[in-house]
């Protein structure tokens, strides 16, 4: 007999609840129940970072996070980042402007980690940024322009001149 549970949580600012198969990963729940397809599947074992979302402000690979654990949590996916009329956030705009996007498959996960980094309001060194972003694999960009995009936004938010 399959086992189900009602999971209540807040997704992208909205309180929601759904009956979920307890075997579901959070990736399964977000993609299949809520159609949040920015949550990508690249390995499903926590090695690539494509399914990364923020849970209570921290980055998690949703593929190895049980959907039932979302109970009572605040979850942010890339769909929740743009404004109500599709206005891009600064980090999304920076990814576009710095050519940090190619195939786009790792992009949602990267941007969500970048959100966590930027929310720390800290001026990190390049080395620190590389470490903070190291939970995502990308085969297109060599990470170079992703670093630029995050770094540029970090400087902008802190009101400091950008030093590339």
């Amino acid at each position, binding site marked *: 007999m399959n086992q189900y549970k009602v999971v209540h949580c807040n997704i992208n600012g909205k309180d929601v609840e759904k009956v979920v198969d307890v075997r579901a990963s959070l990736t399964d729940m977000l993609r299949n129940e809520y159609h949040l*397809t920015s949550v990508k599947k690249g390995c499903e074992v926590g*090695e690539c970072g494509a399914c990364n979302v923020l849970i209570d402000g921290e980055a998690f690979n949703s593929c190895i996070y049980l959907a039932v654990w979302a109970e009572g949590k605040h979850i942010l996916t890339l769909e929740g980042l743009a404004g109500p009329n599709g206005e891009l956030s600064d980090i999304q705009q920076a990814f576009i402007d710095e050519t940090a996007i190619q195939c786009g*498959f790792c992009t949602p996960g990267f941007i969500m980690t970048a959100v966590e980094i930027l929310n720390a309001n800290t001026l990190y060194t390049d080395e620190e940024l590389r470490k903070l972003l190291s939970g995502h694999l990308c085969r297109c960009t060599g990470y170079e322009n992703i670093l630029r995009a995050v770094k540029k936004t970090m400087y902008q938010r802190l009101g400091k001149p950008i030093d590339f």
Partner: protein
Amino acid sequence: MNKVGQSEVRVDGYDKATGRTKYYEDRMPADALYVRIKHAEKAHAIVKSIDTAAALAIPGVVKVLTCFDVPDITFPTAGHPWSMDPGHQDVADRKLLNTHVRYWGDDIAVVIADNEVAAMQGVRALTVEYEELPFVLDVQKAMEDGAPQLHERFPNNILKHTSNRFGDYQSAIKEEGLIKVEGWYETPTVQHCHIENHGCYAYEENGRIVVVSSTQIPHIIRRVVGQALGRPWGDIRVIKPYIGGGFGNKQDALYEPLCAWCTTQMGGRCVRIDCSREETFVSNRVRHAIRFHIVTWLKKDGTIAARKVECFSNQGAYASHGHSIVAKAMGSFHQHYPCPNMEEDSYTVFTNKPAAGAMRGYGMPQASFADESNIDECAHAVGMDPMKFRRLNIMPKGYKDNFSGNVNYYDTYRECMKKGAEIIDYERKIKEYQHQSGPVRRGIGLATFWYNTAVYPISLETSSNRMLLNLDGTVTMQCGETEIGQGADTAYAQMAAQAVGLKSYKDVHVVSCQDTDITPAGLGAYASRQTYVAGFSIKQTAGLLKEKILKYACEVTRQAVANMDITDGNIIRKGDGQVLMSLKELAMTAQYNPVHSEHITAESTYTIRNNAYSFGCTFAEVEVDIEMCKTKLLRIVNVHDCGNLINPALAEAQVHGGMSMAIGYGLSEQLIFDEKTGRPLNNNLLDYKLSTFMDHPNLEAYFIENPEPTSPFGTKALGEPPACSGAPAIRNAILNATGVAINQNPINPHVLFAQFSKAGLINDPWQEKEG
């Protein structure tokens, strides 16, 4: 203003930055049945039986199909253009599911279920009885008499052997005083590791089969699915949505034929095949591991008197792209460093490893590693600086290749090396790094690479294009050359805007999704050809569209066609630049004219009978911690001449990606196999050492823009070239730092430990005692 040459943002940037872009799985019908593949757990065997009873008893499992059920049709999988000459067609050597298991991971059965878990359980519940056969993993052992045979048609497992002969090598090497530099060079099996695994779904619609797939080559997939199922090609419709990278793996028919067949076995219900990462590593395609034997004979002045190159390419279990890869590798040697007397031989050999196919660089990362390692040793052998040696011997300006007709119109190699050397401060550093003796040493190295654009004259080069004038004066454009992440759609928009005379590249709507029912026939994304090849058909089709627009405009404006042009979205009078009407007005007038209504469209095919060289180099600076057997890459600089840049920012980004792949190829990536069983050991992203964010220095990409004369936009290959010269540059930097010449990649800590121990840089007094 020029639309090409500008660093415009990607046309798909907004959607990708907001997560709206739909990849195949995001379009999946909710009721699709899950197809999971049973992969053989033997390297070489015959399947005697498969007991499906336990699998069929699992709730949710609806069908099990095995290698005993599939049509008796062998088909080819390579994403090559079809050849009308049967002698040039790809080797058809696999069935949808195979009773003759030829590698660990071969496809032998599928379980179809209404949910993912039941499908997985079903696969685990299958009991397979095998008759085990001896297997062979090594390319040269596979060629020996008495080696295990993979395919009956290919004695000694040799898929193909080709040769080139120039001058008289045997006589030339008898010259007195020549210096011989000989080496064996070993390159590894690696995988593409696009972040989106391959997957597809298929269903029937009005008696035809529709396949939606993560592929680079929709039109070719249509043909291969037709072949594999024995169906007329028109029965198949292939749709390619956005894909999460390809790098050549998806330039092959992967699971589209199997998926298409499964839907026919399920009464046309939608079925899905989603590769796991573990399957992607083993049961898709890999890059050929090629072993090279190079003998170079040098004169005292440092010129090359004669050269012999043997290449042994490990094809793995199935032909896929087969010999074309090592043939390209082999063909680079006599062009890269032309010399009067050469012998080149290449062999493509089946082994019981995963099938090797196309991967970014198509033989050139391998050839560059071997060639540039040997060339560095040549420089040392004659006591010459490695860059000076290259400047002396590398392909000169004006060189013409008689086979392809390619001409080296500029002194590209020397220009690229000059620029790279200045940027990294080569001359100073090569002096500074002489005579080091400490435990941590630095070094600098360089490597160049040979490349060409597209596949002419080996295969057909064709590109079709369709342009529609929209009622707002914008243009919708379709072509068969696919967007796979590289930014092709953006480059097309820029070229089309320029060619038609639109105001902005945003006035071109490139239909990114190819659908073989709708999209004009094209061959897809491969061979670094998209911008070059599509450029011809864009220019030609834009010309036709313009002609139609101006012809209609003539009716309205009463100006002679020859006296009008289109610029910035307006029809102007050439003589005085007077704006006669906007394209919007023209389009509306033409569409809604009650007497002469016309939807203005143009479509054409261009057959490209040119090819273009695309060269460049890498400089690398490393720090080697000898005791820890670690290499830290301090700087890496690539310089490319890919002609005029259509979009400099996208070009730079693409070079970064190639450099990253080259870093992994040089230092860490290798798919490894258990020698005792043939089982892959590290087919996941934890154990396969793809470079992470922390394994790179900043990637520095530079260009020399020598306009390519054969291209309507002055452009040529860039997609693959950046992946070619990085690994040997790193290798040569390690040689410069430590004096240890390492003839295999990746140069990981295991290799450094062995090589440093052999060279006496590492001395563990207890090792002898350990025995």
